[in-house]
């Protein structure tokens, strides 16, 4: 059971990273980005390509992945989201579905459906926690999360622009009245969320083992969504914690189903559990456990 917990936390970490990105974009543009996970996958493919085909060091691949993720998101924001202005949020969501399809199909065209592996930065230097192997990639990613998280927090609280971003999330109309350009804030939030997707994908790659186009698909996306909702769509730390909580819930459910020999009766029971969580949270406490106001 401890094994299940550890697995759950690791998986939940990925959900948390994706959820962070989802909430960032949602707070900034009131849009649900369906392509959130796929941006990460594309970036992962770039890292793979640079490391395997061009024999560049892992760290270069990882950094380029983060940059690509940020770039895709920022370009999308500039070219599609911003011109759509006050168009219905559903339409913008459909546009993100278009982005998802585009990225997926480009991955397939370029790399085909065969599974790939991203070699870890340092071979064989992982950790064993309660019989679960935590690979170097994950350790480095964890470290990156900590560094980036701290850096982001500092940036947001200490710089003028960062304060503008925080203020814009609280009150987008008032923040214009002090001269902050919302378009810059929007570009920033999307860019950061794209980088977070890439980070999430790098983080989960070792657990997946191999990856294919669209590997971070519906079930993972739904789990991240559940995490974001659980933490409250308006709370950044809440999103991350929510993601981890969902990861744990999922792992425990799987464990229970298997240990009670129910997997024949209820295959995939964890997706039912996640659905139930989503439904209950939305009906009972839509602002999530940690959120302050009711979002949406």
């Amino acid at each position, binding site marked *: 059971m401890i094994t299940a917990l550890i697995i759950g936390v690791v998986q939940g970490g990925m959900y948390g990273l994706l959820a962070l990105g989802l909430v960032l974009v949602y707070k900034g543009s009131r849009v649900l980005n369906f392509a959130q996970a796929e941006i990460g996958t594309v970036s992962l493919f770039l890292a793979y390509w640079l490391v395997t085909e061009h024999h560049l060091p892992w760290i270069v691949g990882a950094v380029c992945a983060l940059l690509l993720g940020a770039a895709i998101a920022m370009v999308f924001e500039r070219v599609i989201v911003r011109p759509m202005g006050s168009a219905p949020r559903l339409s913008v969501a459909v546009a993100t579905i278009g982005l998802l399809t585009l990225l997926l199909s480009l991955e397939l065209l370029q790399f085909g459906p065969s599974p790939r592996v991203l070699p870890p930065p340092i071979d064989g230097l992982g950790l064993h926690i309660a019989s679960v192997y935590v690979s170097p990639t994950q350790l480095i990613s964890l470290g990156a999360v900590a560094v980036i998280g701290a850096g982001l927090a500092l940036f947001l609280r200490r710089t003028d622009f960062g304060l503008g971003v*925080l203020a814009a999330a609280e009150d987008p109309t008032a*923040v214009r*009245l002090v001269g902050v*350009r919302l378009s810059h804030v929007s570009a920033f939030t999307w860019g950061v969320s794209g980088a977070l997707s890439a980070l999430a994908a790098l983080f989960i790659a070792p657990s997946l083992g191999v990856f294919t186009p669209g590997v971070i698909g519906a079930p993972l996306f739904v789990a991240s969504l559940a995490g974001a909702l659980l933490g409250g769509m308006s709370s950044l730390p809440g999103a991350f914690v929510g993601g981890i909580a969902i990861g744990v819930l999922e792992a425990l459910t799987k464990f229970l189903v298997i240990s009670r020999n129910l997997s024949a009766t209820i295959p995939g029971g964890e997706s039912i559990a996640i659905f139930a969580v989503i439904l209950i949270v939305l009906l009972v406490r839509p602002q999530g456990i940690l959120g302050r106001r009711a979002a949406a």
Partner: protein
Amino acid sequence: MSADTVLLELRDVRAGFGSQTVLHGVSLQVREGEIAGIFGLNGAGKSVTMKVVAGIVPARRGDVVMDGRNITTVAPEDRVALGMAHVPQGRQVFPGLTVEQNLRLGGYRLRRRDKRRYGEALQRTLDRFPILAERRAQLAGSMSGGQQASLAVARALVSDPRIVLVDEPSAGLAPKTVEELFETLREVNRSGVTMLMVEQNVTFGLRLVDTANIMQRGRIVYAGPVADLDQERVAEHLGVGRLLGRGLSAAVQSHEAAAR
């Protein structure tokens, strides 16, 4: 105090939302150094007028001119850079940020352009509002209404503005707090800051402003010095004259007596 320079001007502005036209040709002027007020019943269009000046609502026809420069198509954020500062309706301080961070946001545009001027403006503001200097690290959301009002005014002043737009300062504040705010605004104006104010509370507003613009149904029906107004004319211009009828003077007198 009247320099006769016109600092801000609206010229025959028409504006509205969707299919509705709310302003049917509004013209007004704010002279440098004065406090100008816009009054009117709800629906008269005073909020929309303020929004047109701020740039949040576009003028479908007519012009907005500041310092001789036509800013009709300039975005609100960029008007701030040109010297327009805001004390929004309901103060709208950023509750999750500290006093210091709120003030820093006030200087968002100025700080990059002219750090020295920003520093001086910040110091002047902190001198004027010692209570804010004391509570620099306090979260704005945890402050009282009156303190938030001071913060909102300070935030506007930190940008060393040409003109401060004050939107319904008395809304949601207790009478005593309104009085304190009143004093603050008067003092700020006396030190040379031009203001344009929209105010629902006519009694309060008329004591503060130099020039009054009274609106009815999207048009300005009176624009002139406050000294030329009395309660009866004000009632007339607001459009409640007929409501208050013949007994008006007596009623008004008894109302003022009660206030004393």
